[in-house]
């Protein structure tokens, strides 16, 4: 191979990359926080919400889990404006990530809730707690603790999936890479570098989530 690698463009373009990196971080922060919140809400509805609402939530979850994120993003950004819902690239990207993670995390959390020993519900009931109170105070935290590793993996997957928001011109790491390679014609180097950035981001995110986990759940869960 006679190809010579060339990273001489890096000093000129690193601010572009940095800006993309910040956008990606912002996307995953909002996505993870709101997405998990949505997931908890959906899992709660499916466990003890009104009967008519449960199939609605189930349909949302199935629809999201069985379609590509890219299409969800396009539908939100290009399709929704025809219903009068205009939004910026970044807003659309944020919304798509929240909706996506919400569906996945609700399934994960539901599994955690279903693994709760029957005795916990019965103990709550025997102490005169309502079903909501039992869910909120007795069931939810151990359930989240049980599935925290699975939830963390899903958040990392969603972060990596966010690379496609560049396709609606949200200015994330991938967008920066596309921009740079169109100027420098150094496609391989640019994507190599941004891939490495994503890898570091994934490692850092995994570490951060582990930290959050030990903050949220300081005591060992009883199985």
């Amino acid at each position: 191979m006679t190809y010579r690698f060339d990273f001489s463009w890096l000093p000129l373009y690193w601010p572009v990359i940095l800006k993309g990196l910040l956008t990606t971080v912002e996307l995953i922060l909002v996505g993870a926080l709101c997405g998990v919140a949505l997931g908890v809400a959906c899992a709660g509805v499916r466990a003890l919400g009104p009967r008519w609402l449960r199939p609605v939530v189930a349909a949302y979850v199935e629809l999201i889990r069985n379609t590509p994120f890219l299409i969800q993003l396009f539908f939100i950004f290009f399709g929704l404006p025809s219903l009068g819902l205009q939004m910026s690239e970044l807003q659309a990207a944020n919304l798509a990530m929240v909706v996506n993670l919400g569906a996945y995390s609700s399934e994960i959390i539901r599994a955690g809730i279903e693994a709760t020993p029957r005795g916990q519900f019965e103990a709550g009931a025997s102490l005169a707690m309502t079903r909501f109170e039992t869910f909120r105070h007795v069931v939810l935290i151990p359930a989240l603790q049980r599935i925290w590793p699975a939830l963390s993996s899903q958040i990392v997957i969603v972060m990596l999936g966010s690379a496609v928001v560049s396709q609606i011109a949200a200015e994330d790491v991938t967008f920066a890479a596309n921009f740079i390679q169109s100027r420098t014609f150094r496609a391989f180097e640019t994507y190599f570098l941004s891939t490495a950035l994503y890898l570091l981001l994934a490692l850092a995110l995994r570490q951060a989530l582990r930290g959050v986990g030990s903050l949220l759940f300081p005591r060992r869960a009883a199985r």
Partner: protein
Amino acid sequence: MMTFTVWDILRNLLLAARWTVLLSLVSFLGGGLLGLALLFLRIGKRRAGRLFVQGYVELFQGTPLLMQLFLAFFGLGLFGIDVPAWLAAGLALILWTAAFLVEIWRGCVESVTRGQWEASASLGMGYVQQMRYVILPQAVRVAIPPTVGFSVQVVKGTALTSIIGFVELSKAGTVVTNATFQPFTVYGLVALIYFALCWPLSKSSQILERKFNVAHRHH
């Protein structure tokens, strides 16, 4: 301006969906074969093999599939080949699929209890015989539901190949949108077609899993 009926749109999308199906099959089968080879390295006795597969998995599960597609596309180009999109798409998806399947399958092999290894060893079986007659038959049964489940990820993953210019369902969606200016209808239909492809797979994975949990037994 030309007017397009919903049927026109759907027909064009369905024609493109054939490529989504084909690419999914190729990626899943190719990824399965590669994953199987990696599995034997991963659970084998040689340390170098295990480390290699661990690194491989870390790399492909820790980076976006989109980046892998770009690198395959532009990386193959470095060899001076004019890379067709389908080649880069197939290659990247196979490598990516293998990285996930090998981890799923490793979990299944490790779910077979130590007692099974010991009992078969005490009967005089060697490593290959233990694998062939005792461990893998049990692991395969555990592996079927999550493997079918992962095939959904492969189908959805093929959507990203539109970005490097492979014309499948998602790319067709963009093309048809640009021709019809009906993004809501077009992307809605695209989503429904993906759903029609993926949902049966998801559902059968769930059913298989439930069936497996009820009866651990064969026949």
